[in-house]
């Protein structure tokens, strides 16, 4: 079959649907891995995943709408997710979020015009003892201060800069 995914991911999906007693069990991880590669769950991605799992596209969409990590619109290349839940709030999580808004020049759930960053206020990410914390894509950044989050954001800018190795 023609596929939207890289050969490695397509092979992973082929294996994944055979791993469980029912094919559909592979749906949530497939959507997440597809999103990681493509950037978001486009109509074409949804169609292909539905076909691979053997369910309807509307079933797939119903599942997507339930999970907060899954998105049907592009996010920035680096999705900055700042936790403001209780443990982070007590140690300045809201201030970190405000600081990110200023640094990036975008509101909560915004994307920078160059598509490099998006910003999201998120619920507890499991970094309570190292609060305040944020995740950029899947990377944790902990014990944050306004200064240290600036450095974190700069490090991603540097990664994306032309001539950078990454």
């Amino acid at each position: 079959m023609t596929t939207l995914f890289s050969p490695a991911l397509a092979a992973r999906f082929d294996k994944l649907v055979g791993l469980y007693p029912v094919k559909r069990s592979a749906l949530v991880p497939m959507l997440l891995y597809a999103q990681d590669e493509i950037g978001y769950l486009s109509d074409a991605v949804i169609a292909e995943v539905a076909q691979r799992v053997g369910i309807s596209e509307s079933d797939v969409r119903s599942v997507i709408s339930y999970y907060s990590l899954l998105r049907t619109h592009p996010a920035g290349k680096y999705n900055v997710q700042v936790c403001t839940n209780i443990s982070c709030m007590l140690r300045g999580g809201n201030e970190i979020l405000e600081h990110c808004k200023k640094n990036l020049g975008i509101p909560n759930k915004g994307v920078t015009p160059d598509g490099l960053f998006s910003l999201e206020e998120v619920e507890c990410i499991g970094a309570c003892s190292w609060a305040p914390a944020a995740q950029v894509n899947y990377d944790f950044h902990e014990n944050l201060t306004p200064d240290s989050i600036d450095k974190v954001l700069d490090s991603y800018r540097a990664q994306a800069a032309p001539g950078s190795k990454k």
Partner: protein
Amino acid sequence: MATLTTHPDCVPLISYRFGKGATNIDKYIQLQGYESARKALTMTPDAIIAEMKASNLRGRGGAGFPTGLKWSFVPKQSAKPKYVLVNGDESEPGTCKDRLIFEHDPHAVIEGVIIAALSVQARMGFIYLRGEYRYLLTIMEKAVADAYARGFLGRNIFGSGIDLDVVTQTGAGAYEVGEESALMESLEGKRGIPRIRPPFPAVVGLYGGPTIINNAETIATVPHIFRIGAAAYAKLGTERNGGTRLFCLSGHVNRPGVYELPMGYNLKKMIYEVGGGIPNGKKLKAVVPGGSSTPVLTADEIDIGMDFDQVGKAGSMLGSGGVVVLDETACMVEFALRTMKFYRHESCGWCIPCREGTDWLEKSLIRLHKGGAVDKDIDNIRYLAENMLGRTFCPLGDAAAMPTIAFVKKFRKEFEDHLDGKACPYHHAAALQPALV
């Protein structure tokens, strides 16, 4: 990336291999790894369950149900396949302990699955991590692959003639999926909507088969029980509360961190000695003892042992082991609001008391915090919460209602201070405004 914090009172049992490179299977084996599984292979299922019962291990996810008893509910004969399911969807605000286990000792989780599977004759196990823990999935997947390569998983494990497959996967962001029946729905590729119980998962669980579902810390503790013996394990804790657990200290303490302490450890000591007390000479105001769902304790209520029974007697719950400390500068209304904002966001919307209740509670708390509320609103908040209790499909409704009732009951004066057009007297409104309102 996440590391254990230690204190002289800590007892390294679950954390015995943390920081020792035990993600490497050879290192794990060198540190008594897979000895417990080998031991369990020589035992009958009944003997394994008897050992678990004798350990007095109680579920570390929050409910504190005796693990051995839970396993004993799985019927011996079943037309449908049986499963073992590890709940690593750690999402309770204030809780960050399972992360350490997956990061430092992934084989302990696998070995726990093997022992659990042997106890009920299951042939398949699942390890489900929260979606945000992607780096841990990589670690777990490698550990599982290594265990397969050694013949500890797959066909004829340890040459015993028994087959056991283990699948690892992550969720995709949903607190509700930490609820056991919702987790099974998610694992079946659906929205994480809870199922009505009974029947309980031990009888009708994943794919309709009898299922053991345990928190990741519970499962990772199992091999340690077999390593040191159930009696020795039980003795580490208090009566009916065996062993140790990973406590996550967060909030206003000098040394926040994840510490492994014996069950029954004094909460006051945990905050002042282990955690180094409150920063900047501030006074303690309140403690949430077991994750955001557990009723708050006032500063006068913390001279208690941290086990399920003693915290229960004090009117709260030991919960997930997430101890959140609030100093005198914290606004309880703001804290209640942030807690409710979370539950409103995470309510799956399946049943009305939870869907509507969390929404109205959040609205009322926003109004109160902004200074637009009237006296009656405080009673309404409590009334709404009390009427959610026990009336929802799954415990998420209770998890939202219980702390709210305690906030109003124990800190009513602070709620009243927000009345008559007065904005938050703790001056947090400015910081809160963009994020919450």
